[in-house]
């Protein structure tokens, strides 16, 4: 989407542009203000004064999916909530990323039962899984930094 489609094969220029775009994407990635359960409290803690996620370009949490780049699925996703999560993900503009925060979002966690989705990756593609029940704010920040590395390694033109 966007810049990738307009690119021809411009050799050295592309690499530099790639770096520039990826750098700008990582340093102002806006997560969606979207909390489900316990992990949302730790996500709030990560945002708040002690851990301060804005050091990583995340001071702004957007409640609207239209304005956000990153979906942090913080908590267990129930079968009733699943269609809503999918719709929110669909409403996010490209490029978009998703982090499954915590065990419940990654694999169902301790709730292996009729009500909970066994991993949010059943309904949306996930880039980074953060383990923990709930993960410490440091763990979430580590997950985000991991995502940044992934974004930085993003290639616009796949070599033939």
């Amino acid at each position, binding site marked *: 989407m966007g810049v990738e489609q307009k690119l021809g094969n411009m050799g050295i220029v592309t690499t530099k542009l790639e770096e520039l775009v990826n750098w700008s994407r990582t340093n102002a990635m806006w997560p969606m*203000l*979207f*909390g*489900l*359960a*316990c992990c*949302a*409290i*730790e996500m*709030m*803690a990560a945002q*708040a*004064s*002690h851990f301060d996620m804005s050091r990583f370009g995340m001071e702004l949490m957007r*409640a609207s*999916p239209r304005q956000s780049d990153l979906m942090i699925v913080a*908590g*267990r996703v*129930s*079968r*009733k*909530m*699943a*269609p*809503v999560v*999918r*719709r*929110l993900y669909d409403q996010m503009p490209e490029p978009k990323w998703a982090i499954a925060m915590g065990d419940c979002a990654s694999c169902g966690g*301790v*709730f*292996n*039962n*009729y*009500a*909970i*989705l066994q991993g949010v990756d*059943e*309904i949306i593609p996930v880039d980074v899984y953060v383990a923990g*029940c*709930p993960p*410490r704010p440091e763990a979430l920040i580590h997950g985000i930094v991991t995502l940044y590395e992934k974004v930085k390694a993003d290639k616009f033109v796949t070599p033939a």
Partner: protein
Amino acid sequence: MAQLEEVSYEPFKHLVSERALTGETMLLNMGPQHPSTHGVLRLLLELDGETIVNAIPDIGYLHTGVEKNMESKTYLKAEVMTDRLDYMNTTGNNLAYCMAVEKLIDLDVPERAQVIRVIVTELQRIASHLVFMGAFGLDLAAMSMFLYCFREREYIMDILELCSGQRMMTTYFRPGGVWRDVPEEFDSAVRNFIKIFPKRVDEYEALLTKNPILLDRLVGIGILDAKTALSHGVTGPTLRASGVNWDLRKARPYIGYEQYDFNVPVRTEGDTFARYIVHIEEFRESLKIVEQGLEKLKKLPGKPVNSDNRKFVPPPRAEVGVSMEALIHHFKFWTEGFPAPKASIYSAVESPRGELGVYLEGNGGPKPHRVHMRTPSFDNLSAINKMVQGHLVADLVAILASIDIVLGDIDR
């Protein structure tokens, strides 16, 4: 997976006024993704201009099946589930469940364990109220409150981590006592918190209590009278703000609350401001209890923190290596679990949100037959329609924040 369909008003027809059906009033969907619903609550609002005629909550977006899942686990393993119900009051949930199990199997708890339980529960109550204050401030555009409150919350999270190794889901209380004794640093960490915190509460009050913008948004908003509150099963700070002096810590003292000297803050206005003040006062009262608890703990050094009833409590690790009997108990305990009688009990504690009751039924085996958590937020939320009628949409945000709901507590 269920499909998301067009919102239809057909199922809500009997809940809205007749004017909605003629199109005179507007129906507005709020949530489940909304910054002010404290999670995944969905509200269907019937609006006349900007005035709310009816608010119809739609819950279940976080339905976790905790009660069903607990039936398939042994009594001890089921405790892990209770943490994740009301995730702001994790040790409080543990306490409610452990007390229920202790009552069902008739297990004694040593005094030192009870004192530790009181201290940790009250610290958790402060932490929960801190999150309440932070979110309350955030919803009312007092962003700095959120930052301040979460700063202080870290102290408590550190103390909990010190005791149990986890910040939130501690599972620190076990039937018959606590997991293990508090570490040496516990005393100084809690004392440090006690020293800092009163000044911080004054700071919050200086920011909010006399703030004219805030007062305009709170005073006289969302009035809930005592009779309606009781009929709706509302408990906790929300009930006490409506003028009913009902606190289970005073009314039916448990884990030794009768030995502590504290007041129950009560207001009579029943509005959003009264609920805010009750929470602020409870900070100070909880702190008093923690302080007295520390003094009590000092008088009980080295006393056991677990019941010595080997049928229901695992033997200490050191004993397992040398005693055959202890090894058998250890093995039986962790594989099979302990049996409980075929009977049912109901036991309740005062959580930061109200009466947290556990209905526990055994069937003679090692797994519970039925666990029902009577969660306070569920009933507190059921009164929301009575509170918001006639107010503006912006007031709904303040009212929702003031009743301090936790969606995990509601949907279970």
